[in-house]
């Protein structure tokens, strides 16, 4: 690529025009030392100019950080970005200084004069020797984008740093057109944005829709008809808030909120490589549910999981919380090289930290400087050093927990005070098998894996190309933040200080990243759609001011998650009807502008849990080891050397977060509905439709059995005429009564089902024998079977599996 350099060299030569600074908005304070993170000056220019993602009209003024910087990143950073090793012509387009503080004799951009700006000449050139990106580049600038960059230059080439790397500053609550509509400050921000688009919010959702929506969102289970009735009858002005408070106090809340965290924490019951050996981490899951139900402040929640073992007078709970850092996959394949795999475990911890708390794709910097964000490879390995001191062995045992581990006291999870004290894990003992395969002695099912520091830190080096066997031993790296992230002179010295830094006011990212994921939980999409990536290549926020306001409010509340949830679900924004008006699906298909309420399909776990709940089969018991509900024949055996031994009785009907999770063969019912595989950290998953989902809901034993018991419930609890039965069943599943246009086809179908089972008397008993729970034999079989098919329709309704 030497030719590129010469191209640029030629272009600059002999340019007589001096550098002209742009008129405003350079915020030199943000770039005193070239660090993108050090700015404390936050401009709301971006927010003011941001337009709807679907708005057709180009904004009057080009927003550099939202519109231009992402283009530079995507098309130019590969050769002119943060990665020093691939940088050409000594030019980086991620730093203002590199663009503007060049040799005055050869400026790159002349603000206000695109036609005289070499940068513009290059990107618009049709001379293959001059044009940028060069003809060989696979990612080219499109015409529209070139026009945009020209416009930006002509407007003065204002430069702001990437929004997510500046500390949030509390914005003023905006003025809005309708003072009546907002219920809290969230709504002011949302409405101000809608005002700018000349759009109006939707009316409030019907009360039965609202209580179903909020009950599912906060607990993962639908409201009962009694709960709905109580709410419909409650005429007090705070009737909705009362429901919200009841739900926030429910033990189901912690179970439901644990789900996205289990995905992020890549929690599983097996090790995840090759033979996918068994491990025992459910005590950590117990801890998680309890912490969420107790409303543990998020800052402490963070510190406990990342460094609970290092706290003074650490409790046992704090120590068990560190299982978060041990939930990664562990390789036990004979023949593996332990040193290689220790590196993989540490990498997994760093990458998970990046995604969960920082919204950064740190993993890119494992092998080279980050291509887009200011994280150097050296910076990566300084972060690596925080997690490289674990007293672990690189190869896992043949089944069982890998050290460091501790025994869980018998009175877990209640724990007497004397038992709630950190236990010092014993050093691992190694045993040799198969000639030369050295493994640690495993911990049994009474143990749990935790973090524990080595007495002497393992030395950390930069690993060339990320390879364990290519350390750059010229420098031993001490723990530290990437230079660009370090605002004070003193870097966090160890894992504990790192955790404290994450939730300190010096970090621009964590509070934003966390409130965004909570927003995603409630609306199906974050204010930043790419909730895993707040870097330059991520999507800019739809409501930047709201995001910052929420983040700062969250911190101000003492990182109170329940309060954040209460604020979101009691907002007028959240309470809108989710029905899209005629032009909305076209104008704003993803509902980024929030002119309507949320509408999205349940998660895999919610789909099954709801079926269990409405059928009355659900067995509620918090915590404990995982259970093995129904699975297809040979589900493990057909592709591995393990056999799935299904449970019986109550274990078949526990909530899905307790379903045994084998990483290499996840439960198919969950996988079919886009559940995270739990192999690596995941904070966002698609919800695509597949035919396998339809087959599961129609034919899977768990769902047929649920239909069978929903039918029993209908027969027991509703009046005996079919109209009442249909209305009752419909309401149990959807939370509302059917319209005539809905009950009529259902009645017709029911009659046909009944007719079929009457004419084919051998068929009903077959259908009613599906699943292990015995039916009530007193109920007439034909009617029971016909109602089972009716319930099968109800459980397959779009509305049944959609939060709306």
């Amino acid at each position, binding site marked *: 690529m030497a030719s590129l350099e010469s191209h640029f060299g030629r272009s600059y030569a002999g340019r007589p025009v001096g550098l002209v600074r742009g008129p405003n908005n350079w915020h030199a304070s943000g770039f005193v030392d070239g660090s993108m993170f050090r700015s404390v000056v936050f401009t709301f220019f971006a927010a003011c100019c941001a337009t709807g993602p679907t708005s057709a009209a180009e904004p009057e003024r080009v927003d550099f950080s939202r519109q231009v910087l992402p283009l530079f990143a995507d098309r130019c950073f590969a050769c002119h970005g943060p990665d020093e090793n691939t940088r050409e012509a000594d030019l980086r387009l991620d730093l203002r200084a590199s663009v503007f503080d060049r040799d005055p004799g050869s400026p790159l951009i002349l603000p206000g004069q695109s036609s005289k700006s070499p940068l513009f000449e290059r990107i618009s050139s049709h001379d293959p020797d001059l044009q940028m990106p060069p003809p060989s580049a696979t990612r080219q600038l499109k015409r529209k984008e*070139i026009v945009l960059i020209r416009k930006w230059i002509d407007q003065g080439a204002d430069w702001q740093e990437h929004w997510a790397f500046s500390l949030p500053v509390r914005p003023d609550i905006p003025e809005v057109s309708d003072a009546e509509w907002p219920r809290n400050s969230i709504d002011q921000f949302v409405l101000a944005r809608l005002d700018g688009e000349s759009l109006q919010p939707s009316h409030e959702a019907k009360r039965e829709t609202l209580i179903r929506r909020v009950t599912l969102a906060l607990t993962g289970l639908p409201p009962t008809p009694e709960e709905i009735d109580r709410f419909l009858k409650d005429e007090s002005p705070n009737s909705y808030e009362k429901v919200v408070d009841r739900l926030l106090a429910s033990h189901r809340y912690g179970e439901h909120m644990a789900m996205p965290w289990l995905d992020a924490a890549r929690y599983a019951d097996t090790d995840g490589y090759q*033979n996918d050996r068994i491990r025992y981490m459910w005590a950590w899951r117990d801890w998680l549910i309890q912490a969420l139900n107790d409303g543990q402040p998020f800052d402490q929640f963070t510190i406990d999981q990342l460094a609970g073992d290092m706290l003074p007078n650490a409790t046992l709970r704090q120590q068990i919380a560190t299982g978060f850092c041990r939930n990664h996959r562990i390789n036990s394949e004979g023949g593996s090289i332990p040193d290689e795999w220790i590196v993989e475990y540490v990498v997994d911890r760093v990458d998970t930290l990046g995604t969960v708390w920082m919204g950064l794709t740190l993993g890119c910097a494992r092998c080279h400087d980050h291509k887009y964000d200011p994280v150097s490879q050296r910076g990566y390995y300084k972060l690596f050093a925080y997690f490289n001191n674990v007293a672990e062995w690189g190869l896992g045992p043949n089944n069982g927990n890998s050290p460091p581990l501790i025994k869980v006291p018998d009175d877990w999870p209640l724990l007497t005070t004397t038992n709630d004290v950190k236990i010092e894990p014993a050093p691992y003992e190694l045993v040799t098998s198969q000639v030369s395969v050295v493994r640690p002695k495993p911990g049994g099912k009474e143990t749990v894996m935790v973090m524990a520091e080595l007495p002497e830190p393992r030395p950390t080096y930069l690993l060339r190309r990320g390879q364990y066997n290519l350390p750059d031993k010229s420098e031993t790296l001490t723990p530290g933040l990437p230079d660009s992230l370090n605002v004070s002179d003193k870097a966090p010295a160890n894992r504990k200080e790192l955790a404290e830094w994450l939730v300190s006011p010096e970090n621009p990212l964590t509070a934003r990243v966390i409130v965004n994921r909570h927003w995603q939980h409630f609306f199906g999409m974050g204010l930043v759609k790419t909730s895993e*990536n707040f870097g*330059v290549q991520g999507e800019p926020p739809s409501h930047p001011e709201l995001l910052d306001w929420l983040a700062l409010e969250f911190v101000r509340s003492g990182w109170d998650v329940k309060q954040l949830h209460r604020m979101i679900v009691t907002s007028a924004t959240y309470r809108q009807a989710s029905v*899209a008006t005629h032009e909305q699906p076209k104008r704003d298909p993803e509902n980024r502008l929030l002119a309507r309420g949320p509408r999205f399909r349940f998660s895999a776990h919610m789909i099954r849990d709801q079926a269990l709940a409405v059928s009355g089969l659900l067995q509620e018991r918090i915590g404990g080891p995982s259970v093995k509900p129904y699975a*297809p024949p040979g589900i493990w055996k057909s592709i591995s050397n393990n056999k799935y031994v299904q449970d019986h009785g109550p274990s078949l009907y526990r909530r899905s977060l307790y379903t045994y999770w084998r990483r290499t063969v996840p439960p*198919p019912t969950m996988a079919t509905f886009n559940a995270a*595989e739990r192999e*690596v950290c995941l904070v966002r998953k698609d919800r695509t439709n597949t035919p396998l989902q339809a087959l599961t809901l129609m034919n899977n034993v768990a769902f047929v059995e649920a239909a069978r018991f929903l039918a029993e419930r209908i027969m027991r609890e509703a009046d005996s005429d079919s109209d009442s039965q249909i209305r009752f069943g419909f309401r149990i599943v959807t939370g509302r009564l059917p319209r005539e246009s*809905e009950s009529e086809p259902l009645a017709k179908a029911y009659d046909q089902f009944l007719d079929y089972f009457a004419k084919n008397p051998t068929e009903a008993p077959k259908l009613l024998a599906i699943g292990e729970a015995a039916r009530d034999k007193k109920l007439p079989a034909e009617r029971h079977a016909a109602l089972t098919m009716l319930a099968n329709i109800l459980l397959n309704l779009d509305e049944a599996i959609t939060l709306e």
Partner: protein
Amino acid sequence: MNEIPEHRLQINRRHFFGRTSTGLGTLGLASIMNPRLFADEAPGRNAMGGLTDLPHFRPKAKRVIYLFQSGGPSQLDLYDEKPELIKRFGEEVPKSIYPDDRKTTMTLGQKQFVTAPSRFGYRSHGESGLRLTELLPHLGGVADEMCVIRSMYTETINHDPSITFQLTGSPLPGRPSMGSWMSYGLGSANSDLPAFVAMTSSGTAKAGQPLYDRLWGAGFLPAKFQGVKLRGKGDPVLDLNNPAGVSPEIRLQMLQTLGQLNRQKLEETGDPEIEARIAQYELAYRMQTSVPELADLSSEPKSTFDLYGPSAKKPGSYGYNCLLARRLAERGVRFIQLFHRGWDQHGNLPKQIASQCRDTDQPTAGLIRDLKQRGMLDDTLIIWGGEFGRTVYSQGGLTKANYGRDHHPSCFSMWMAGAGVKGGLTWGQTDDYSVNVAEDGVHVHDLQATILHLLGVDHERLTYPYQGRHFRLTDVHGRVVNELLS
């Protein structure tokens, strides 16, 4: 070179710039006059559900049947003939050729690393004279269709990362499998069956190494592009069959009522997701017919089973899966991924590999012959191979009759046949011990690039944005091995 598809025949950007003297000033007008200029900014989907800009050029192959041999088949005993090694029987393999730091920790503790020549003979086949082990007589009959690569190499030494690398381009989980990439990029030629189907089988002598759902998973691509696993036991597709007691007629009644209610909801809410869901129920219903029809072999004549061998009648066997692969190919399924386990022969290799070859030789050759007689070999690409090779030194004791071999990533053999590849070709060389590639090495990413090329896909241009990067199957590597192409 290939014809340029009509939809690619538009004024490209460079061209346009070159002809316009006023440059950017007229752009706005140009875009109004020719809206296709901006077509690439609204990537849509073509009639088959593939990306509109794919294929990038005219494909040689319309579909792939990938016969993955899990465990790491021994190149020394199958394709990489080393007759001179007989003379070195029992001699220590020189450390200069095989240094310790490249051995797995499973054999690293052995006191000696003695040369274990293959105890099987090789024979010439066909007009090409292609050399194959005596264990593969049926393949010998189709040798002139085969393009054997002796110089494959990979990067990792253990099963899990190696097989994941081979099929997703990365040794770590999270990336889409090759079939998912093809399903995403090229769509499906059959509206009643998924574009990507996976099947698994085990050897009769030994079950073998485990497989993982990620090997046919969609990774970060939307889940609808994942491979659908056809199962040898129970319902061929999970939950395909109606529950006992439910006839097709009342299932249809149920679906009609469901569709009626869902359409009402669609009208009420305007949520396009409902439309997609309705379509998926329709496809599910069609699959309830199309999959049993696919798996119903009663219409196959006796000659079919003569070709594939008796195991083709046994659901879940390799032979059965090969026959199903042909039936899937006939129905337009884009990517058919078979996995056959049992090639991980650390000990007792001669007996085990003979058994594996007995299980697979006839069905594999039968598939090639069958496709050929149906005129489908011209546009079907067949790939055979595993995740790595095996060591020349014996793992455990060595006798004339018995030896074992450990994992070996530095060289191994694979072969392709059918669409666009040179039949009867043997490509690449290993050194005298079959330890290192001596000539014309083909990296896993090179093979992947070549497979995509045959399907009309430029491996550098089929990308998907995820976590702020444009990911592709071949990461940032890969070279199309043109020398293998006809």
